[in-house]
C-alpha cells in the first residue's frame, strides 16, 4: 500500500461527507423517509439543468439553488401525491422522483447541445479527482467540513424539535412546533447536503450514508443521542475502511486471480460497500446477541 497526501485528503473528505450525511439521515429514518435522499439525489437533476439554462454558468451557487428547489419540490410533491392521490408514501416518492429525473434528462439533452453538462459526472462524482487541487486544502474538503459543521450545529440546536416532530407530529403541532415546517426544514437540509456532497463524492455514497449508518446504529441502541453518535462512528469507519479497501483490495484480488495489472477502484463506491458490510456484520451480531438472552432492543410485552 502506497499512502500519499492525496489518500489523506480523500479519507478526510470522505469522513466529513459521511458524517454530514449520517445526521440528517438518522432523522429521515425516524420520519420513515429514508429513501427521500435517493429521491432527492435523482430529482435534483432538472433543478441543475434549469439553473444552468437560466444562468448559463456552472457556478456552485446557481447549481445549489436549483438543486435545493428541486429537492424541496420532491418532498412537497410527494406529500401532495400521497395525500390527494391516496397512494402509499414509497409509491408517491417513486412517481415524483422518476418524473423529475426523466424531465432532468430531457433538459440536459437540450442543454448539452450547447455546453458540457455531463449527467455521468452528476451521478457518479469522483472523490479521487475532486481532491486534486491547487490550494493547500482542497475545495471539496472545505465544503464537506462546512457542511458537517452546519449539520452538527442544526442537529444540536433543533434536537428536541426534530425528535418531537418525528415521534408525534400531532402533539408537536398542537404545542406550537409546526411539524410540517420542521419536516420541511429537515428536507431542506437533506437537499442541500445531498447536492453539495454528491458534487464531490457522487450520489451512491450520499444515498448510502443517508440510510445505512442510521440503520446500522438502530440495531444497536434505542437511545436517540446514542444512535446519532453510533451512526456517525459507522459513517466515519465506512469512509476510512472503504478507501483503504479501494486501494488495496483490487491489487490483492488481482494477484490472487493472476491479473496483477488491476489498479485501485472507486473509493466512493467502496465506502458505500463498506457501510453495507458493516451493517451486515452488526445485524448478524445483534441476532446472535438476541438469541443469547441478552436484554433485547424491543420486546412488546
Amino acid at each position: 500500500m502506497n499512502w500519499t497526501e492525496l489518500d489523506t485528503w480523500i479519507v478526510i473528505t470522505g469522513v466529513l461527507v459521511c458524517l454530514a450525511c449520517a445526521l440528517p439521515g438518522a432523522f429521515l429514518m425516524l420520519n420513515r423517509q429514508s429513501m427521500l435522499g435517493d429521491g432527492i439525489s435523482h430529482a435534483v437533476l432538472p433543478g441543475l439543468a434549469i439553473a444552468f439554462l437560466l444562468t448559463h454558468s456552472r457556478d456552485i451557487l446557481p447549481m445549489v439553488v436549483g438543486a435545493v428547489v428541486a429537492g424541496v419540490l420532491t418532498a412537497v410533491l410527494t406529500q401532495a401525491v400521497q395525500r390527494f392521490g391516496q397512494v402509499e408514501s414509497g409509491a408517491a416518492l417513486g412517481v415524483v422522483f422518476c418524473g423529475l429525473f426523466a424531465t432532468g434528462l430531457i433538459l440536459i439533452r437540450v442543454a448539452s447541445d450547447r455546453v458540457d453538462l455531463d449527467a455521468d459526472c452528476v451521478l457518479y462524482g469522483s472523490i479521487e479527482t475532486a481532491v486534486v487541487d491547487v490550494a493547500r486544502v482542497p475545495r471539496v474538503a472545505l465544503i464537506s467540513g462546512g457542511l458537517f459543521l452546519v449539520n452538527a450545529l442544526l442537529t444540536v440546536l433543533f434536537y428536541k424539535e426534530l425528535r418531537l416532530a418525528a415521534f408525534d407530529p400531532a402533539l408537536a403541532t398542537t404545542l406550537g412546533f409546526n411539524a410540517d415546517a420542521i419536516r420541511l426544514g429537515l428536507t431542506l437540509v437533506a437537499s442541500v447536503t445531498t447536492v453539495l456532497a454528491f458534487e464531490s463524492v457522487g450520489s451512491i455514497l450520499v444515498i448510502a450514508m443517508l440510510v445505512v449508518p442510521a440503520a446500522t446504529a438502530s440495531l444497536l441502541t434505542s437511545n436517540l443521542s446514542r444512535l446519532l453518535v453510533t451512526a456517525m462512528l459507522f459513517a466515519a469507519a465506512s469512509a476510512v475502511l472503504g478507501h483503504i479497501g479501494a486501494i488495496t483490495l483490487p491489487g490483492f484480488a488481482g494477484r490472487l486471480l493472476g491479473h496483477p495489472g488491476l489498479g485501485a477502484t472507486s473509493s466512493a463506491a467502496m465506502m458505500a460497500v463498506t457501510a453495507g458490510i458493516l451493517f451486515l456484520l452488526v445485524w448478524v451480531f445483534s441476532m446472535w446477541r438476541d438469541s443469547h438472552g441478552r436484554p433485547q432492543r424491543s420486546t412488546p410485552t
Partner: protein
Amino acid sequence: MNSIESSHVPLVIRDLNVAYQTKVVVWDADFDAPPGKLVAIVGPNGAGKSTMLKAALGLIPIASGSVRFFGLPYEKARHRVAYVPQRETVDWDFPVSAVDVVAMGLYRRLGWCLPVRRKELDQARAALAKVGLSDYASRQISQLSGGQQQRVFLARALAQDADLYLMDEPFASVDAATERAIVDVLRELRSRGKTAVCVHHDLPTVPEYFDHVALLNMRVVSQGPVDKTFTAENLRKTYGARLTLLEEAAQAVERARVSAQHRATL
C-alpha cells in the same frame, strides 16, 4: 347555549364542517364543554369524533365554522389545552424512553432550541408517578405494555398542566389497571376544576365515568348531562337501528338509572 366568546367555557364549537376532499365527515356540529366536567364524545365508527377534536385543534383544516377555547382562538389558548392523540398514531419502536416522551409535554414552555434540563425531567418523573409508572421512567417505550403506553401519554398531558384535556380514545384496548388509573386521574382533574373531553367507545361505562355526553354521528345529535342525554331514544338516533348496540345501550341506560337512584338514596 353558551356565547362563543365567553372566556370561562373551555371549548365551544359552532357550525363546524369538516370534509376529507369531497366526503363530509363533520356536518354543522355544535359542541360545548362545560367547565369542570368530564365529557364523553360517543358515536358509531366513522362518525367524526376524532375528526372533530383534530379540526378544533387545527390539525386538519375546517371547511367552515368556528372554534373557541376559553373564548379565544386555539393559537392564543394553547397553554391551557392538552391533547392526547390515539395511541396507534405514533411509532412505539421510536428510540425514546418513557420519561423523554412525558417531557415532550413541557416543550412549549421551554421554547425553541433550548434543551430539556434536569428540571423538566424531574417534572416528567412526577407526572409518571401520578399514573403509577415511576419504575418505568427510563424504559424504552416499546418495552411497555399497551396500557402502560397509554398511561405515558396521559402523564405527558398531565405534565402540560392544562385546564382542558382533549383525549382521543384513552380507554381503547387497555388493561383493567390502566382503566382504573385513567379514571382516577380524570376525577382528580375534575376535583381541581379542570375539564376533560374524551372520545369514548364503551357505552356501558359512560354513566359511570362521565358527567356530560355528546352523541355524535356527523352532527351532534344530542348533548348535555348524562342522566338527561344518555337515553335509549337518543342512542337510537345516533347509532341507527343496530340491534346489538341498542341492547348494549339499553343496559347502560338501565345501569345509569339504577346508580342515579342509588345516589339519590344516599
